[in-house]
């Protein structure tokens, strides 16, 4: 198993190359070309107990549909994993996407109002709809500069994370 792992966020994060192979009684681990002696178990969901040369670490995994964070002790790292064989999984810079892009509800809530009309021009980061959850109103912004092709959100409607609110092209 070979992974490319970016630790520390999309910008400025460092890329590590990790090779893992099953070996007698455990795992063989090669990190950035160096052999590391490890032992790992998952004592419960989203918790990893990792021994590295006798040093004990408890790692907790915070995973949502949007991103992955790992807590190593009291340090929280943004982590991203890639398959190095897939060139297409390389990150494209935000706002520079070609073609239509969906504007998705980031959380469950209720649509309060629409800030733009269908077929209007929007800038990158311009508010498109307002969704209310937990007594707070949140502007959902355009992922790119372009034309609002479709506006599927309607005021008063309940939305779930991942629901398409609009499509910008």
């Amino acid at each position, binding site marked *: 198993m070979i992974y490319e792992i970016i630790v520390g966020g999309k910008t400025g994060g460092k890329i590590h190359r990790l090779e893992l192979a099953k070996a007698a009684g455990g795992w063989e681990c090669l990190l*950035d070309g160096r052999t590391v002696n490890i032992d790992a178990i998952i004592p419960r969901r*989203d918790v990893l107990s990792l021994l*590295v040369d006798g040093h004990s670490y408890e790692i907790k995994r915070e995973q949502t549909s949007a991103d992955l964070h790992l807590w190593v002790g*009291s*340090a929280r790292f943004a982590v991203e994993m890639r398959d190095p064989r897939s060139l*297409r999984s390389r990150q494209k810079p*935000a706002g520079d996407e070609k073609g239509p892009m*969906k504007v998705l509800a*980031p959380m469950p809530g*209720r649509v309060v109002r629409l800030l733009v009309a269908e077929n209007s021009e929007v800038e990158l980061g311009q508010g498109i709809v307002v969704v209310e959850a937990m007594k707070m109103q949140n502007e959902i912004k355009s992922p790119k500069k372009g034309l609002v092709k479709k506006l599927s959100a309607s005021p008063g409607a309940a939305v779930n994370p991942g629901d398409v609110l609009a499509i910008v092209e």
Partner: protein
Amino acid sequence: MFKKILIANRGEIAVRIIRACREMGIATVAVYSDVDRAALHVRKSDEAYPIGPAPAAESYLRMDKILDVAKRCGAEAIHPGYGFLSENAKFAQACADAGVKFIGPTPHSMKLMGSKTRARQQMEKAGVPFVPGTSRGLDSPEEGERVAERVGYPVMLKAAAGGGGKGMRLVHSQQELRSALESAQSEAQRSFGDSEVYIEKAIVNPRHIEMQVLADEHGNTIWLGERECSIQRRHQKVLEEAPSPIVDPDMRRRMGEIAVKVAQAANYTNAGTVEFLVDEQKNFYFLEMNTRLQVEHPVTELTTGLDLVHLQIHIAAGEKLPFAQADVTIRGHAIECRIYAEDPDNNYFPSPGKITVLLQPSGPGIRRDSGMYEGWNVPMDYDPLLAKLIGYGTDRHQAIMRLERALYEYFVAGIKTNISLFLRILGDADFQAGKLDTGYLDRLLAKANPAVASLAPKPEIKAMESIAAIAAGMFAVLDPASSISKNGGGSTDSSKAPTVGSSWKRQGRSEGLR
């Protein structure tokens, strides 16, 4: 003493009050909305009754339904907690009319403190220092200009009925005053149905420090020390501590005495909080009085050794305060972190949803008042406060270190929380030096959100990065069921539903198809 108390609230505060009642041998009655059937306060109470649909206006704010439950189940008193109906004088009156004891002040005191201008007039008479300005609504822009000239710019325009920053405007010069007044008045009219707006001198970079008071129904009023509440965002407190890093015993006594004067001027009974603005020269000014139990009351409980909810119930039952001012001593230091369901990676958007994993801290000097549990679905209809984590120590440094240790143990998965924010605050040099004001948190958040939130020194973080990389791989190979590559996609199409099959293959396909 009461035999049965109804708790007209939900979440952590309802659980906290239920605990106090159980400790006192009092039966508890919970009320709940349709989405709160599985909430912790319903599970922990002796009786529980539904009061309507999810929106608070149709359930937790329905006085008639709540009083109806109280009558039917024979509750002798109602504890309103904070928020919802807690500062509603009409509700307190309705309770009195129904012969149910409202655990809090009288409707008269609540009404007086509910109007900022009326409170100012009353306090002026009592000789309480407040921010220079008017104690009445402005009749004309000219009057506003005259007062502003006298107290000096910048000035603050505030709605008399205001709260939460609504109907509030900061004005730097005479040119801005007229239009700011008009917009503040119309916003006040829209938000509160009352366009009364008054003016006061704006305190630059103030601290927000409040004083806890307790008053029984026999004329005894005492103060229990201050809480530093300057760490706020969007007029919402995030972290509070007692004592304040800048208040010495003499200032504490002076603030306490003023707070007692404020309470007495309003014929106040039960627990209350007098809020002060404190300027850079440590002058303090009366701001307003909160006529309820505060969210942050635990830091006062830990530093005084008192249980405020027990005392509230004893006072409401007509008992005298069991101790005098001279018996109150402040010992040690306590800091509270408000754990909110908010996404630190997405501008602190609310993050309701199902809690899939919950690991909770404990151990010396740690108190946790929580309304959540593993497997619970946090509803989107209410305030995002999930729990309060309070650290107590011999001194401020120990309290900070204990909290850091407890945050290390705290883990919530399934939804996002602001737990990592507290590591940023606790590790910040200004916070550690006690250099706080109400703009502190906005300034901290304006700095780039570090990809790594930690108190650990840099070289250690470097080593931890490698550990994180190894851990990511080990999670992937040991727990392949949970797809690892959901997060590897485009930055905007961020909510792909988890599916079965090879994540890599699926990832490749979805990327290829875009």
